[in-house]
């Protein structure tokens, strides 16, 4: 049983410390994410929000503390084990991180081409389904290169790529930054839909408060390397803490 009360949380961060070039970025943070939950990590620029996602993915290692994902400690896992843990995860990058030289079909179907024995026709069908799920017309975009897509389309293709293998855990790094309000709401609705329909656990890093209030079950506010607030949307809105009021202002 953890602090959150759930016996089997998807993610546990315990006393995680990390510094870059002698500058502390994370100063002993604790965070628990339960199955099916959407947790938004808020904070100003350079607060270390994206670093939390990179730690959860095992792309970087903490100097101190433990990171447990689906019951497995990322710090003690071998490289092959970390790759195996990532099979159940998906990540939506801030800049989409689509492979420049591959078409939308090859980008979205990348995971299936790499890790399954599905035929090309089956993968194409799955790609079309994923594109439809993110409100893109497969016939229009499937043969295009990333450079031929608009910013909003790139984000949605990135989302389709992250969810095509139906991961249990989805991580989002600023999924709505730089998007217009209509596209932002569409992406927010998609994140909620994935949680409702597929029961996906999500960690969303954002500095967009409106977006966070729409999608979050729980919010964590990161400031100067520490989580200074953790609670529901209502808790945050009614909080009297000065740093929360300052952030909401």
């Amino acid at each position, binding site marked *: 049983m953890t602090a959150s009360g759930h016996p089997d949380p998807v993610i546990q961060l315990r006393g995680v410390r990390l510094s870059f070039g002698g500058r502390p970025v994370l100063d002993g943070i604790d965070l628990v994410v339960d199955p099916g939950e959407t947790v938004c990590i808020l904070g100003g620029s350079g607060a270390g929000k994206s670093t939390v996602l990179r730690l959860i993915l095992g792309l970087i290692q903490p100097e101190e503390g433990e990171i447990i994902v689906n019951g497995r400690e990322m710090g003690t896992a071998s490289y092959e084990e970390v790759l195996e843990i990532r099979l159940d995860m998906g990540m939506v990058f801030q800049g989409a991180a689509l*492979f420049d030289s591959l078409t939308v079909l090859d980008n979205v179907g990348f995971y299936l081409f790499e890790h399954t024995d599905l035929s090309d026709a089956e993968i194409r069908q799955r790609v079309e389904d994923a594109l439809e799920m993110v409100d893109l017309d497969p016939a229009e975009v499937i043969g295009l290169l990333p450079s031929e897509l608009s910013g909003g389309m790139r984000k949605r293709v990135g989302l389709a790529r992250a969810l095509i293998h139906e991961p249990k855990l989805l991580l989002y790094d600023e999924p709505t930054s730089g998007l217009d309000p209509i596209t932002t709401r569409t992406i927010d609705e998609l994140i909620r839909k994935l949680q409702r329909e597929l029961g996906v656990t999500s960690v969303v890093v954002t500095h967009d408060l409106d977006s966070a209030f729409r999608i979050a079950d729980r919010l964590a506010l990161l400031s100067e390397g520490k989580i200074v607030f953790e609670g529901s949307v209502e808790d945050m809105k009614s909080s009297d803490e000065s740093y929360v009021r300052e952030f909401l202002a």
Partner: protein
Amino acid sequence: MGFLDGASSLLRFPGERLKLLAWHTQEYVRLAGRAAVGLVTRPFYGRDFIVQLDAVGVGSLGIVFLTGLFTGMVLALQSAVEMEQFGATIYIGRLVGASTVRELGPVLTALMVSGRAGSGIAAELGAMRVTEQIDALQTMAVDPVRKLVVPRLAACLLAIPLLTIVTDLVAIFGGLLIAVVKLDLTFDLYMRSVYQTLAQTGFILRYVPIDFVMGLVKPMFFGAIIALTACHFGMRAEGGTEGVGRAATGSVVTASILILATDYFLTQILIALLIQ
């Protein structure tokens, strides 16, 4: 106080540089080890290998052809100036053949491919690093060393020796052009002179000149240096587009120095093994 601070930072500077050099060396060796394992264990990325072979090998043919041609021509011209004084121009084929096959062919090919393909690899991987494409690969449980480094290493290991053969042949042809057109030597005389110098150090397996073998062992090492150096710098690029530029420059400078240094030591080893 200010002076002492300045002196201390001056003293600290070489220490930082040494630490950085040690870190690069450690990471380079680690990358080489992982790539070597990737060459002989699954999964193999055959399609990526073919694409890289085309980019490194076929893509470098033009530059290698021109390098060989002008190197052979200038070698013949320069040696003619000296040899004419002793009436020894008939030996120009020897000089062009020996210096090309033993040294200039492998080294110049490697340096040119490092400048062209090595910088391209470093820039491509650097751009993938700064736009988080390499992170994306890792999040999809794909090992970037196997997916990106191994196909490039395999392509360079195969392409550089083949390109060296092209350089050797074209350089000998360039020397022939000068010998026939400017020095009035016959085709037969020039080619016999080339053959004599290659036969001088002996043969392996009865028909393969030792010089030729030496000239092909080196490019395999040079190919590994070009690919690993470019991948090392590219995959560690940071700092946006400026970082990509730094990665490409660092890759070419480092690979060039490593090629020239390795050439010396390999020559020593090969002479000891094959000739003495």
